[in-house]
């Protein structure tokens, strides 16, 4: 999961394979057929395990409320395409286009929140890695302990604090707590320590560059793979965040898509037509995550490779 250990292991492999690399590659890996197929089998089972629910989501979103129970669960019906489009249409028109609003909110919370959160985490991690000052380790340890506290446990105290300053039921109530990422700080520090050479910073200072300018023009580029990782993690965490908005927000127009779908789902027994909307909505709501991963994956893996040949 973390970029840093992956980089380290790559580096190790890169080092040891230089001698025999060419010959090994020509003859192919040495594993036996047995162990390879065992590995493939295990991976295949897990792939199936992870993809089946998404497949179900896809097929079910092409059905009307009644067809969900009366047709084969993992396959399409004869008029799937039309039903899917009709479902989509109803999804975006139900309740005066509420769902579109929720998607926008989520994009705003997750997009802007992850961006600013990444910058803050990067600066913090970078400072902890590259500057020596008193209490550095203490600060780092305190930040690290933040990783251990589940966000759920903080929701109620946060609510009481935000009530004091009358910020509950506003966008800020969800946005501000999303900006901090202890794990991001940890990752940024590890990565900055490994990938930003102190000599380079010295050189920049000799050339008359200020610390802030050096950070943005030199260091962030070197830390780019870590930053993309932090951004992705933060984006996914905020996008999937549910408990904090549940406690903070009363106004439907401020809900992120997770909370909105949850609210709909809790009303199915009264308004059964919501059943198919919740399913189509769930499908639509995971698309941005898939897009974010596919789009940023390139930077991510190329960055890992670049770190490997030092």
């Amino acid at each position, binding site marked *: 999961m973390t970029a840093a250990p992956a980089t380290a292991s790559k580096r190790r492999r890169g080092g040891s394979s230089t001698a025999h690399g060419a010959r090994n590659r020509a003859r192919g890996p040495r594993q036996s057929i047995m162990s390879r197929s065992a590995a493939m089998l295990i991976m295949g089972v897990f792939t199936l395990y992870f993809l089946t629910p998404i497949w179900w989501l896809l097929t079910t979103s092409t059905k009307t409320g009644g067809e969900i129970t009366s047709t084969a669960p993992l396959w399409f019906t004869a008029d799937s395409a039309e039903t899917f489009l009709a479902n989509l249409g109803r999804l975006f028109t139900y309740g005066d286009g509420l769902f579109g609003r929720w998607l926008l909110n989520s994009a705003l919370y997750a997009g802007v929140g992850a961006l600013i959160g990444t910058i803050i985490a990067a600066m913090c991690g970078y400072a902890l890695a590259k500057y020596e000052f008193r209490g550095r380790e203490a600060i780092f340890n305190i930040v690290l302990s933040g990783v251990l506290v589940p966000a759920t446990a903080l929701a109620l105290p946060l609510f009481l604090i935000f009530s004091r300053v009358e910020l*509950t039921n506003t966008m800020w109530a969800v946005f501000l707590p999303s900006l901090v990422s202890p794990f991001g700080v940890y990752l940024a520090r590890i990565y900055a320590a490994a990938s930003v050479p102190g000599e380079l910073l010295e050189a920049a200072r000799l050339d008359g560059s200020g610390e802030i300018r050096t950070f943005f023009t030199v260091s962030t580029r070197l830390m780019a793979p870590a930053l993309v990782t932090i951004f992705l993690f933060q984006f996914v965490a905020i996008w999937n965040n549910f408990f904090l908005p549940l406690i903070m927000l*009363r106004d439907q127009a401020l809900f992120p898509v997770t909370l909105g779908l949850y609210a709909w789902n809790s009303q199915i027994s009264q308004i059964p037509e919501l059943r198919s909307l919740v399913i189509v909505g769930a499908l639509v709501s995971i698309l941005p995550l898939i897009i974010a991963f596919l789009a940023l994956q390139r930077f991510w893996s190329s960055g890992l490779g670049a770190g490997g040949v030092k």
Partner: protein
Amino acid sequence: MRAHYGKVTAAFAMISALALSGCSAGGDSTEAGAEAAPCEASEGPVTLNFTTWVPGMDKVVELWNAENPDIQVQVQTGPNGNSGTYQNFFNQIQAGNAPDLGQVEYDALPNFRVQDGLENIAGCEGVADAQDKFVDWTWGQVTFGEEGSVYAVPQDSGPMAMYYRADLFEAAGIEVPTTWEEYAAAAEQIKAQGSYITNFPKQDVNWFAGLVWQNGGQWFANDGENWDVNLTSPESEEVATYWQDLLSKDLVSTLPSFSDEWNASFNEGQQWTWVSAVWGATTLSDGAPDTAGKWAVAPMPQWEDGGETAGNWGGSSTAVLKGSDHPAEAAKFALWLNTDPEALALANELGGIYPAAKSATELEAFAGGVDYYGGQNIYEVFADASSNVDPDFTWGPTMTQTYTDVSDGFGAAIGGSGTLMDALENGQQKTIDSLKAQSIPVAE
């Protein structure tokens, strides 16, 4: 209206423990029989916040806002009560920024009352006189039988009756059961045909409570000071033993209710009856579309031949939450919302609400036959049921906990370990423990 219990509940249980410990430090949570505070109208225009989870309520409120420029209401819609909104109310009451009005189900009202989360609106204009406008038992739910107290305005109710497959009963030559004894006999005949008479839902403990309610049982009582917990009364035991017998003989299915497989089971004709509330009419027609026209509704089976009692499942009120700056205006709006014919009609159309107001029977929506039920006017049956619901049934202050514990026990009984009665005995003990843990006085 229907309660959901799940993982979320567990998370809330943890959080509410935190909230409660904060609350009891606040002091007067056990104050009983408070005097009706003077309820004076505010000067100038006011804006009220109203949190509900009934779909379409914003449209109903638009009607009000158009006619009342000085009392504007803003609606917030969220997840249903037990899925988070109640916990939010408690947090907000504690933080002093709760909405003026909130939707609260009858079985959650005592919890709010015990934690001092409700404004007594008895002194507000028009409230005391409104009693006659509501079905008797719903009024009992919002006053807790306290003199000079009204804590909410009844909104909707869920009188129970029996949905049954008229076509299947007729084809098989089985009489439609009118007593529980006949119901059990019919269950055997239906099982012989490879189907089930109904489904026993382990998580719908409030449904089970509705059956006990019909039998004249009481789970809770409050004498103004102490709470009496009585999940194991003879009436309760009779109901539990009855269903245990059906379960042991495998005459009822045990699917999770409102799930896809549950819907499918109804849709495919595996289920012949469903003893359920009035709001179940749309659940059925939407979940089992292939059986349209084949259903009918009859009164609940009776414990005594010729009886007319009915139970209730669900229903909620519009409560004025503690800390509202404008209780008079809030009460005025709540009364309008739940008695005005136009508002009731729209709430029924958009939100599927079956009003607690007596005038509901005059609504056009309940006047004609329903095609899904073979053209029968099913609402006549439910209106009768509504007037036959015991008005004295009382919910306890920790229903979420009680439901969870009893539901766990029901699950175990279905799995073959223990009985439904064991589940109730365990629920009884857990409930008493939980009340004591919250310093709520319990009668021993």
